[in-house]
């Protein structure tokens, strides 16, 4: 056995040396000078260019969390990207190759994924990350390599704030900034006459920031925040916490958390006689038919803040059909559509900036690609009309409030018409 260990390690060392060799000749391809047909002009882009040979695929990377307790979030967005690729298999006449990395929903995963992807000179752009903690570790690495990245589910405000670090220049997102969503729900609640609100978060950055923004905004408008509670995403027994909230006598509970815990809070709140008539509301984290299933009858009358689907309903319904046929199950989390849009945002920009060198060879300048992406205007996506701000917020800023009409997941069809479930009630 000891011998085989020695042998195995020897093998590994050999393997590393062997594989290092074929990697070397790939480097010069980065340079513009190529003798064959399709002579590309010398690359003048400050961040370098990627040259893609004839029939060579365009490499786009994803960085999602696909294992561990948060895996459904990453699997969901990964599928969004895959379906987008099925719908648009070629960009600028070249096939697309998706490569992926697990970001683990933590900083170390983000760093590992970012290092790996940024060391691949053929990667043109990336979709990711899922979690803001992973993003903060990955962004400097990706931007250092000049690879623009679009996140479908980072919602932390600081990532696209006016004063964000200069090294975040290549980062943008199709997810909604918590500032936009939390404020919208606070405004709605206040307008409808609610004055005593309670909030619940689950210790995730997403939920914590949303409830924070909601609370600040609600207080600014003149309402009271009577309780700010927190739970765990895997918690099931919400009864005790809800009993505690009930004692504070709120008339509105804001729970911008995810499906599993959100379903528990909603159904168990209805079982509590003191909370049975309190208005419950969540965010796009639980804007999904699965939530109806998890919450049961209690989902009737529930409120969500979410992008306005009214104008884009049919495309989304179409997407859901493809999803079920391809993966055999319903969508897992709320960010697949954002991932779908992220892919298309990248694809549009590539087609805009790609330099045709003739003979099927194209050249993609990196800085120009990022510039094209961040100047996206009025792109029709599944999540609305996408327009990017100079600091990378690309999500449609129009937020609507929806109300659950029926608890039957089969009727889920947001925005199909004025009375479809859930129903758009604001603005």
């Amino acid at each position, binding site marked *: *056995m*000891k*011998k085989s*260990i020695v*042998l195995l390690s*020897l*093998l*590994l060392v*050999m*393997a*590393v040396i*062997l*594989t*290092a060799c*074929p*990697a070397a000749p*790939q480097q010069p391809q980065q340079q513009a000078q190529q003798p064959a047909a399709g002579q590309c002009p010398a690359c003048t882009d400050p961040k370098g260019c990627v040259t893609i040979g004839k029939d060579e695929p365009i490499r786009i990377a994803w960085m999602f969390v*696909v*294992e*561990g307790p948060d*895996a459904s979030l990453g*699997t969901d967005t990964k599928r969004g990207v895959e379906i987008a690729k099925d719908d648009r298999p070629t960009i600028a006449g070249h096939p697309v190759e998706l*490569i*992926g*990395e*697990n970001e683990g*929903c*933590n*900083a*170390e995963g983000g*760093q*590992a*994924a970012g*290092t*790996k992807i*940024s*060391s*691949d*000179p*053929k990667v043109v752009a990336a979709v990711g990350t899922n979690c803001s*903690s992973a993003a*903060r*570790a990955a962004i400097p690495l990706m931007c250092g390599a000049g690879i623009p990245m679009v996140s479908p589910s980072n919602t932390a405000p600081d990532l696209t704030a006016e004063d964000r670090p200069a090294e975040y220049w290549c980062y943008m997102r199709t997810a909604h900034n918590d500032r936009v969503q939390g404020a919208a729900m606070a405004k709605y609640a206040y307008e409808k006459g609610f004055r005593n609100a309670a909030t619940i978060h689950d*210790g*995730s*950055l997403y939920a*914590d920031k949303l409830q924070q923004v909601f609370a600040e905004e609600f207080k600014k408008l003149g309402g009271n925040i009577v309780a*700010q509670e*927190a739970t765990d995403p895997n918690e099931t027994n919400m009864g005790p916490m809800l009993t505690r909230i009930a004692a504070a006598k709120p008339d509105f509970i804001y729970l911008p958390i995810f499906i599993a815990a959100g379903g528990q809070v909603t159904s168990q709140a209805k079982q509590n006689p003191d909370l049975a008539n309190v208005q419950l509301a969540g965010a796009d984290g639980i804007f999904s038919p699965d939530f109806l299933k998890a919450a049961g009858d209690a989902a009737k009358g529930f409120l969500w803040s979410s992008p306005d689907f009214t104008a884009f309903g049919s495309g989304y319904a179409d997407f859901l059909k493809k999803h079920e046929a391809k*993966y*055999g*199950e319903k969508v897992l989390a709320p960010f697949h559509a954002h991932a779908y849009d992220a892919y298309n945002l990248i694809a549009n920009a590539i087609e805009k900036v790609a330099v045709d060198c003739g003979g099927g060879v194209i050249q993609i300048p990196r800085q120009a690609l990022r510039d094209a992406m961040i100047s996206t205007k009025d792109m029709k996506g599944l999540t609305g009309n996408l327009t990017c701000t100079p600091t990378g917020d690309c999500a449609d800023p129009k937020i609507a409030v929806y109300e659950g009409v029926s608890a039957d997941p089969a009727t889920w069809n947001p925005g199909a018409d004025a009375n479809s479930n859930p129903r758009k009630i604001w603005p």
Partner: protein
Amino acid sequence: MTATTLSRTAEKETTLHWSRVVGTGLIGGVVAIYVGLVGMIEALAGRVVITGLLTTGQVILLGVYLLMSYQAAQKLTGADAKAGPLSVVAGALAGLIISIMLALLVVIGQQINLRAMFINASPRLWELLTLGRGVPTGLVLLMALGAVLGALAGGLALLPSRLRRAVSLGLVAVPIVSILNTALFAGRGVSALGALLIFAFFTAISYGWSSVGGQARERVAALPSGQQRLLKMIGWSAVALGALALPLLGPYPSEIIDTVGIYVLMGLGLNIVVGFAGLLDLGYVAFFALGAYTIGILTSPEITWLPLHLTWWEALPIAILVGVISGTLLGIPVLQMRGDYLAIVTLGFGEIIRLIFLSDWLKPLVGGSNGITRIPRAVPPPQGFSDQQVLWYIVLAGIVVAAYIATRLKYSRIGRNWMAMREDEDVAQAMGIDLVKTKLLAFATGAALSAVGGAIFATKLTSIYPHSFNLLVSINVLAVIIVGGMGSIPGVLVGALALVGLPELLREFAEYRLLVYGAVLVFMMLKRPEGLLPEARRKLELHEGEEV
């Protein structure tokens, strides 16, 4: 096969166990169906191992066929006796059975909608299993292929053991090299010719090594001791040089070795607590978290309530001190607890620390789920190098110091006290060993090393979040030292490479990483309960136990 072979085997009085062959084939079939339904074939069908020829999904299925058919061929007569050409038949039979079972799955799957339960029982899977040729033809083809593969594997059993080992190594090397090429150097598999070359190369090397290696070792053993020592020194300097040169492989390999290194550091620490002193600690992550948060609080400009903003180097001794103090503090209440009571209390301690850092309660101080960001780097990298490459030298220094401390302690009086306590606390106490001091020292040393790991972790990421400090880290470190060989210092290194390094390399397969990790843990423990590189004494003890 023919009457003569049958009679010849009968003459040798070897009984043939055909039922075992069928049994192994059936198990193989179950494994193949499992691989299909768990989604591996489908999910990995897009990743190339040999360009235009083989995908990772197919390689896995191929592995099932070859391994199980080979096992079946071996089972025909048992390990000692040779079955002769009949083993080819046995292999083919097993391969055929696997194919038949897969074919049954396809047939059933096309009649009944299995997808209501098994999400991977999709048309795409049936297409892959019928080799894209539809039900009747594809299935016949699958069976033929299965029989051929089985026969090949059975034929492998016929080869002399030296050649067999070399060929199997060559076979295993092809996918490994290909996957490494994909993982490390952003390549896309290898070409068919490349695969052939790799196979030939590794087979030859391994075949050559098995003859030359033994001789070389004998010759070394025959050398005078002075020259042996010289050889040893040359060997060690080569290792040291290699370790120093590792970052030259590039930023991504550096990232991997940094992570492995941090685990080695923590493994060395936990090895003292669990391996030397026999105290089962399932909450080792607590000290890792405390070390990281100490650095975060002391260095990050974000912390306004304690505006020290030290450099990493200034904060490091404080982090170590925090580790020592918290290790001792945890040690006191658990002094009287033994075995599994200790395990659950330490596990609880780990969770308490994480939850407190996450809580709204301490949010104004440590940021809650926001964590602490903008932690400075320990050393700014020189032009052309990445942070990860530079960080390796800090990690390496940590490992060297930790290994030195661990070795010195192990062979000192304290080390012997720990080991006596590990074997029997009552006897140790009766022999005059101060249990309190001995236990607390083990906890404190272990905690200090973990805190150093945490400190390096914090500067590696420049931002820390409570989610990074979950139970999985504790379990991972424990698995590293046990798989490596408990109590053994080189074992920690091997364990970390196997359990942290390999999974990092195989990030691509993230969805199945923990599945494989779990299976490997079970398999390793069943095959080598003493670990990969066990401490000599442990090994003795274990085998003593087996003989009784």
